Structure formats: structure tokens, C-alpha cells
């Protein structure tokens, strides 16, 4: 197993290892959110505004990662997206994309685990959009897609931000599915929680685990604060109020 640098790192700056872990975690979370967002918006719109047979089952499947043990999700991912798995083999053959034991796999696992949270927040926010505004837009010439992109989606923006943040936070914290699917490879798949876990398994690693845990706390606070600011700004915009002061 990879050994972390010993010694007493400065309390105010991050070591090379810590920086690497942080960067990897941010990259994994960023891409997982970015890639899953369009799907989540589409699924949320369908759940909020359409009725079709089997909707309940569809809804349940979307929510599955929320209730399944993460290890189970990781295991299924391994079966499907492993190099010999049905999807993994196709991806490799057609696009040369390999996700197994790569950071991209960690992003995939994180995206799937955060998906239900994202869909839920966006769906609630779409359901809250006044349908009479959508009807007004259609009398002005907007077709279904036009109404969606100019009215529904902008008005649901606070929910989209909340959903993205929830999923981002979930991605930063993802452990079970990640370690099962892509293992714990330093610099490739060892994200923040995995690094903390590794330190707790290492003799005299408690101090390092504490440093990384504090880092996780700071990261979460920053993300929460940012989303709060963004949601508030978006909500003010949605209420149709004039901007107050600069920004």
C-alpha cells in the first residue's frame, strides 16, 4: 500500500498528498454533477409534467440509489461497466473509454449515487412553476421546447442549483460505491473519504485523518454558502424584483 509522507505538516498549508486528494475529489464531483445534470433535468421534467403507465416504477428506479446499500450499487456498476461487463466492453470497443479503476469511474459512481437527490430537488422546483405562465408563453408562439427552455427551466433554477449542490456534496462524500467499483488507487480513485479511511487504517494516521476531515468540513461549508448565495439571488430574480444595489 502506498505510504503517505511522514513528518509534521504545517497546520496552515496543504501537503502535496492532501492537495492531490482535494483536486481529485473536486474533479470527480465536478464531472459527476456536470454530466448527470442534463439527465436529471430531463427526468425531473418527465416526472413533474407527464403521466404515463409505469411512472411509479420509473420513479422508484430513479430513487433506487438512495435506498440501496452503496456497496450494492458499486457492485452492479462493476458488473456492468467493468472491462468485461456488457456496457464497459462496448464503451471500450466503440469509444476507447474505460471507466473501471479510473477516476472517471469514480465520477460515474458518484453521479449515480447523487442522481436521486438531484432529480428530487429539480422536480419539486419544476412542479412549483406556475403553469399559467407556460400557457401564456404558448399563446406568444412558444412550442413545448420553447416553453421549457425560456420559462420552466429558468423559473426552476433555484431547484437546479440546490439539486446540483446536493449531488456535489454527495459526490464529495461518496465512499461505498466508489471503493467497490474503482477501488482505492492513490492519485486515481482515492478521493477524500477514501483517503481519510486509509489514514484511519494506518498506524499513527489519526492526525492526517483529522486534517483531511477538517478539510472536508471547510469544503462542505464553502459549498453550502455558495449555493445559499446563488439560490437567494436566483429566487429574487424569479420573483421578478429589480436588482438591489450592485450585483
Amino acid at each position, binding site marked *: 500500500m502506498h505510504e503517505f509522507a511522514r513528518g509534521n505538516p504545517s497546520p496552515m498549508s496543504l501537503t502535496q498528498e492532501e492537495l492531490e486528494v482535494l483536486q481529485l475529489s473536486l474533479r470527480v464531483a465536478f464531472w459527476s454533477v456536470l454530466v448527470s445534470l442534463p439527465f436529471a433535468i430531463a427526468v425531473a421534467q418527465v416526472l413533474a409534467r407527464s403521466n404515463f403507465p409505469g411512472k411509479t416504477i420509473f420513479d422508484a428506479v430513479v430513487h433506487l440509489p438512495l435506498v440501496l446499500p452503496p456497496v450494492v450499487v458499486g457492485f452492479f456498476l462493476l458488473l456492468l461497466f467493468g472491462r468485461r461487463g456488457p456496457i464497459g466492453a462496448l464503451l471500450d470497443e466503440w469509444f476507447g473509454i474505460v471507466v473501471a479503476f479510473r477516476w472517471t469511474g469514480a465520477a460515474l459512481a458518484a453521479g449515480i449515487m447523487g442522481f436521486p437527490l438531484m432529480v428530487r430537488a429539480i422536480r419539486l422546483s419544476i412542479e412549483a412553476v406556475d403553469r399559467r*405562465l407556460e400557457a401564456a408563453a404558448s*399563446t406568444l408562439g412558444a*412550442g413545448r421546447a420553447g416553453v421549457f427552455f425560456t420559462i420552466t427551466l429558468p423559473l426552476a433554477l433555484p431547484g437546479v442549483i440546490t439539486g446540483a449542490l446536493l449531488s456535489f456534496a454527495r459526490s464529495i462524500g461518496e465512499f461505498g460505491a466508489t471503493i467497490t467499483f474503482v477501488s482505492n488507487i492513490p492519485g486515481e480513485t482515492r478521493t477524500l473519504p477514501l483517503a481519510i479511511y486509509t489514514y484511519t487504517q494506518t498506524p499513527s494516521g489519526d492526525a492526517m485523518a483529522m486534517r483531511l476531515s477538517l478539510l472536508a468540513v471547510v469544503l462542505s461549508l464553502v459549498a453550502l454558502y455558495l449555493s445559499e448565495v446563488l439560490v437567494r439571488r436566483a429566487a429574487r430574480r424569479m420573483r421578478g*424584483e429589480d436588482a438591489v444595489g450592485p450585483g
Partner: protein
Amino acid sequence: MLSVRVERTLGKFRLAASFQAGEGVTALFGRSGAGKTSVVNAIAGTLRPDRGLIEIDGTTLFDSERRIDVPTPKRRIGYVFQEGRLFPHLSVAQNLRYAGLFSRGMPAKSFDHIVELLGLKDLLDRRPGNLSGGEKQRVAIGRALLSDPRLLLLDEPLASLDAHRKSEVLRYLELLRDEIRIPVVYVSHAVEEVVQLADTVVLLSAGEVAAVGSAEEIMGRPDLRSATGTFEGGAVIDAKVVKQDMQYDLATLAFDGGELTATNVDALIGEPVRVRIRARDVSIALERPRSISIQNVLAGTVAELSPGQGGIVDVSIAIGSTILRSRVTQLSARELGLAPGMNVYALVKAVSLNRAGSSPA
């Protein structure tokens, strides 16, 4: 030219209405629940009739026989809703230009013209959340007009405004009526608005067209009273301001048959106004009275007596070609010996001559 024939059954309510509307303002008038909004929604395409035919300028929008149902975005019908429905995330200017996103916008010249006409210039950069109710409705009207419509539908656009805002928006609507050349269908249950704006009134009652005619005709007919909701009864008179007496704040209005004095007439000399005189504000005398506070004494002849419930009689009095209505008790009618053809004097209190629309319905 708009031609509408719609049938729709919804639970116990059955809508079966047909009418035509040409240039100018056609008021769909009737009490709440008469089916007015269902009719305009069918025209806009947001409600699908069971059967019917909707055509405008030779284009079929809906035809149940030929299975034609043009979707709402393609109908080119401007719709102004009761609650405005401005898009809160867009500025006033973006709201006005919204239809342009879907190549339904108007050239810049029309944009400037309509902004000017509705007095929206100072609002362009504002957001809808901070506008007053009247301003919101003006923007909504502008937005609908700028979508290059073949027809403008206004569904109780003044219903959610207070009396002051109502008359503000009403003035703009009057202005528009005289400026734009597309047919307007105006839904309302307020007598005053209909009287002031409508060229033609389509009276809806329990889902059916009860009568079609000019505002004067419809509002004056005693037999339509339960459908119009004008239980008070009255007459609508087209007049013109001929004198404004600043000292007493009195205006003299000339109409076909005589002159009337009125207070609170917010119009310039020469401007046409419509006034509504409620039957209960008109008394009858057999001789010209002297020393009386009532300013308007008009000579006429009794045209018709229609007894109503509760011991009252509505008397139609012809003054020139204008018909005034007076509500008196049956007892007074007998004591005066009122009969068609009699010469009488109609006494109208000047204060009751509010300009239609400036008083709450």
C-alpha cells in the same frame, strides 16, 4: 373577421355558443359562470371544444368535422389574462420582445409605436415584480400586441385592479381601440367597461348566446336584465362634451335629443363620451318643475311601461332618438296616469352622470 361556434359539456355545465366578431371591440359579456372564459380559451386553443368551428380571416383554427386543431403557438392570437401573467424572470422589455424569440415579433417600428402608445418607455428596464397592477396589465397588453396577433383576447383584464387603476388601463384600451385595426374580444362582467369599450356586445347566459347587439341595445333591454346582471336597469347614451364649467366642475354633454349636465367628466371639449344613467336616478314629472335641485330636466314621451317585481315599473322615455329609463313605483305610475305616448319630463340628478368606467361597477 372571427367566427366561432363551440360546444362543450363539462359536468352539468353545457357550453353551446356561436357568434361572429368583426373589426373593433366585441364584448363577451355575462355574469360569472356564463362560460365567457371557456369561449376565449377555445379561441386561444387552450381548451378543446367537443364540437365546433373556429375561423379567423378565412383560416380555420379548429374544426371538429375536418379534425383540424391548430396548436396554440401557431394560432397567432394575442391573449391578455386577468392576472397579467408577466414572466417574472424577464425584464419588461424582454417580456415585450418574448414573441420575437419564436419569430412572431414585430418590426422595431411597431415596437416603438406600441411602447409609446401604452406609455411603457420608463418601464422597459424594470422587472414585473415591482410594477403596479395597472402597469402590469399595460405591459401584458403590449406583449400580446407585439406577438403580431390576428385577434386580441382580453379576459377580464381589469378585474383584479382597484377603481383608480381600472380607469387608467381603460383609457389606454380606448386609445388602442381607435389605433389598432385587429378585432378585439373583450371578456367582462362589468357593465361600465363594456359600455365604454364595446362596439358589439355578445351576451352569454348559462353557456349560450342570449343576445347580440350594441351596448345601448343590450344594456337597455329589460328582458335581458337577469343575464346582464344590470338589475338596476338603465340607459347608455353616446354624448359629446360641449362645455366644461371649471368654476362648478360641471360639464355639459350634448346627445341626440338634448343636453345633460354632469360632474366629474374627465374629458376635453369635443371628446365623445358614453354615459350610463341608471333607471333609479331618473324621476318623472308631468309638468316642468321649478325651484328644484335637479339640474337635468328633459322633455320626452313615454314609450313603454314594463312592470317589474316588487311594485316597481320601468318606464322608457323617448327623448329625441334617445331612450332613457326611469324606475318608479307602481303607485306613482298609477297616480301620474303614465301611459305610452304621454308627454313627461325626465328628471336626472347631475351627480349620477359619472362617465362610464370611472366608477366601480
